[in-house]
């Protein structure tokens, strides 16, 4: 394990597509949740999907950059998000459906930024 904190859970949540999608989300394992903890490197408040880049430091000190795909700014705005919901340097605990191929990334499920939950997309 090269990241600080990983929880793998068999997801039993009766939720719809984790991120509302214009494309297939088959690359994500929607049966699993994984939680990572790190620092926001970049918040891409863009269409068709938002992206959150997170630097996660492993126990060995090596930093791995995760790419988290979320919903669209329009949809998230209706749930109270703005382009300032997070910024580089923020501490973040991110729960995601991980990529099936094991690459560092996933689709957004929920997150806590600087101690404040920002809710489900």
């Amino acid at each position, binding site marked *: 394990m090269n990241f600080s904190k990983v929880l793998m859970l068999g997801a039993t949540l009766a939720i719809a*597509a984790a991120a509302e999608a*214009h*494309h*297939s989300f*088959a690359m994500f394992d929607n049966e699993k949740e994984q939680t990572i903890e790190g620092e926001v490197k970049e918040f891409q408040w*863009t269409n068709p999907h938002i*992206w959150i880049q997170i630097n996660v430091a492993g126990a060995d000190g090596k930093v791995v950059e995760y790419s988290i795909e979320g919903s*669209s700014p*329009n949809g998230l705005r209706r749930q109270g998000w703005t382009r300032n919901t997070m910024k580089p340097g923020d501490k973040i605990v991110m729960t995601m459906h991980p990529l099936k191929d094991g690459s560092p990334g996933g689709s957004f499920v929920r997150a806590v930024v600087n101690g404040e939950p920002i809710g489900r997309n």
Partner: protein
Amino acid sequence: MKQSFLTRAGWFATLVCSAALVSAAQAAETNRFAHFDGIWSKTRGSLRYSQNPPFTPAAQAAFDGLRPQDDPGSRCVESGTPRIMITPYPMEIIGRDNYILLVSEFNHVVRRIWTDTREHDPDADPSFYGDTVVHWEGDVMVVDSVNFNALNYLDPAGDPMSTRMRLVERWQLTDSDTLQIEFTFDDPEHYTRPWTSVQTYKRQPKGFKLGEFSCTENNRNNPDDPNNPKSLTSTDTPQPYERKRPQ
């Protein structure tokens, strides 16, 4: 013969009332397609028309082998009908006297349904939204479409469609804030029999605004983009679509 003033006034009133009735009837007919005016969002749930469509064996095998990067949506290909009808993005419906516009928040997509033709056009070019004719059965608007170009999937899950598909939609307001559409897919190329899916859409409150949306602004899922080192779909590993997702 002389008519009294009262008689003449009576005739006049009758004429005025008749004219008003005729014009109200015409207005009702003219405005019939405004029946669905408003902004609507699909109720949350599956982004798939069916969890278990009656695939032919070949279609089942093709579906099982789909890879995320095969999805035309990952390249921002026009959604077309019926995919645009199952996206989670809100859409505005605007009924005019001879057409209905569906303006989706997704990529500013416009689906235009002509309502003043009764026969399919044998010379129509195959298209993303098909060739559509409309008729009413009571308060149900029946939208019958053929001649799709089939350059996209039925839905984001990857259910296929062919140029032979006929789609019949039955649109009905089940209450003033609920639009229900029953979709019947008849596509012998991929399915062993016609099959049906019902989707519901909720009217959004006054003041709800559609936002701007560009599919190509930051499409990191485009597997063809060589300038996109962070593409997450550029794997060649076949990954069957997860079909256990709850409805």
